[in-house]
């Protein structure tokens, strides 16, 4: 294996991930608008392409050609950097998620993930924290009051939920014994009684806490305090327009998909799923299909939550994070430890 081949492979993967993120976001936004519309007895986008499938394209291109206003009072450098700082981590997170079964070209194994980091989980936690910096910086650098309130809220929210998110992952690591996402998916291979996948979903408290923190991490309803339209107008992106706003928009939806994909990877068996004895050329694509299906099911959950729940208040959000999620995570870690110990060493009195 030469260096060129590695470079080539990495290049293709990077481009592919970027393209995948864009396509997913385009589908995702349309999906969300259609689902929300259906839940509200409406039709949703209908005019841009058949059933409005090109709606996101129209939005994106329009924002691209729209005038980007830079208000007078901004901190110029940070104001410009913030949208990029929002989007880059979103794409970087997606780089480590395995979206399908590894396959072989000749004797070369191609892993269907941007890269297989052996510290994948830590990497994800680190990257998602950086994404919050973008929000904080955007709010602060706008030099205006509503964005500032938004960024203050964002930092408080990050502190509360980052901790819960990290703690929720500890039992997963303890059960699977690895922090590599590929290895975690592999650990969920096989089935139980012939049809139930042995997924990490048995760690239900972890799953629930991780998903809730994920919703908070992506600033989605009911935790969308950062951009609460009815309270602080647009929050951190109030002063952004044109393409810079589009980057925030893109990052938000990419993050939604990321959280769904990570949840699928960690708890729902990743790309594992029945292959129904399909022929080789279909069986190759089935894992990707399962992965996407599971991810979009979770995205649907995101949308469902958004369509039905009111927004939480600042202090309630904090107390929910600190007084509920974190203690439960800690308790669950202790229980998991005991369970693992029992599984390995047997009951103490036997």
């Amino acid at each position, binding site marked *: 294996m030469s260096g060129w081949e590695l470079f080539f492979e990495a290049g293709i993967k990077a481009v592919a991930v970027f393209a995948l993120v864009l396509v997913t976001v385009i589908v995702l936004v349309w999906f969300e*608008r259609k689902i929300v*519309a259906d839940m*509200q*007895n*409406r*039709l*949703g*986008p*209908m*005019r*841009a392409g058949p059933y*409005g499938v*090109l*709606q996101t*394209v*129209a*939005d994106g*291109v*329009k924002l691209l*050609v*729209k*005038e*980007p*206003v830079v208000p007078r009072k901004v901190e110029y450098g940070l104001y410009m950097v913030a949208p990029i700082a929002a989007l880059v981590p979103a794409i970087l997170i997606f780089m480590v998620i395995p979206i399908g079964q590894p396959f072989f070209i000749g004797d070369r194994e191609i892993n269907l993930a941007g890269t297989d980091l052996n510290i994948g989980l830590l990497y994800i936690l680190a990257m998602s924290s950086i994404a919050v910096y973008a929000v904080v910086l955007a709010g602060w650098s706008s030099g205006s009051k509503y964005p500032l309130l938004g960024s203050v809220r964002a930092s408080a929210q990050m502190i509360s939920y980052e901790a819960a998110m990290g703690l929720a992952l500890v039992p997963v690591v303890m059960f699977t014994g690895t922090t590599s996402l590929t290895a975690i998916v592999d650990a969920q291979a096989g089935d139980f009684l012939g049809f139930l996948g042995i997924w990490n979903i048995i760690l239900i408290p972890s799953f629930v806490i991780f998903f809730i923190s994920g919703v908070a991490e992506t600033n989605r309803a009911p935790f969308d305090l950062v951009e609460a*339209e*009815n309270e602080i*107008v*647009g929050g951190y*992106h*109030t*002063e*952004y*327009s*044109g393409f810079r*706003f589009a980057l925030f928009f893109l990052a938000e939806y990419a993050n939604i998909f990321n959280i769904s994909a990570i949840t699928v990877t960690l708890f729902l068996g990743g790309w594992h799923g029945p292959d129904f004895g399909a022929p080789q050329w279909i069986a190759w694509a089935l894992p990707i299909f399962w992965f996407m299906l599971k991810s979009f099911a979770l995205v649907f959950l995101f949308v469902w939550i958004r369509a039905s729940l009111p927004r939480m208040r600042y202090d309630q959000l904090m107390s929910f994070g600190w007084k509920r999620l974190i203690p439960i995570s800690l308790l669950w870690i202790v229980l998991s430890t005991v369970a693992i110990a029992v599984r390995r060493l047997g009951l103490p009195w036997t």
Partner: protein
Amino acid sequence: MAHRSGPSGFLLTTYESAINWTRTRSMWAATFGLACCAIEMMATGAAHNDLARFGMEVFRASPRQADLMVVAGRVSQKMAPVLRQVYDQMSEPKWVISMGACASSGGMFNNYALVQGVDEVVPVDVYVPGCPPGPQSLLHGILTLQDKVMSGEITR
């Protein structure tokens, strides 16, 4: 076609109409409700009339991200500077629909308090008549605006 003043090469016109297509299909309105008409504007966004069909359910609270200002209701002398400021805060290209009799001409309130027509403050692209205009009238106004944008009648 006589009134078209933009570039005339084939590629450029195609590009131009593609851009115009995206603009018409994704015309985000600023939440700028003033009076009775604002209620009808909200009703237009609701289930029965569903502005979302045109990709317009995205009401932007921040004018910087909005393309369209629907001046829905009577504009008082006190509100006029604010209205102008919101208009100035919107980024180009931007359009204005004057919704209802009061916004278009002062309506039945020809008195000291009201600006007699919002076109004294901001340039208006489409006037929607009615007091208040029903959702169908507003939709018609929006479609008219889209036609005008599409045909290049309004170039910004």
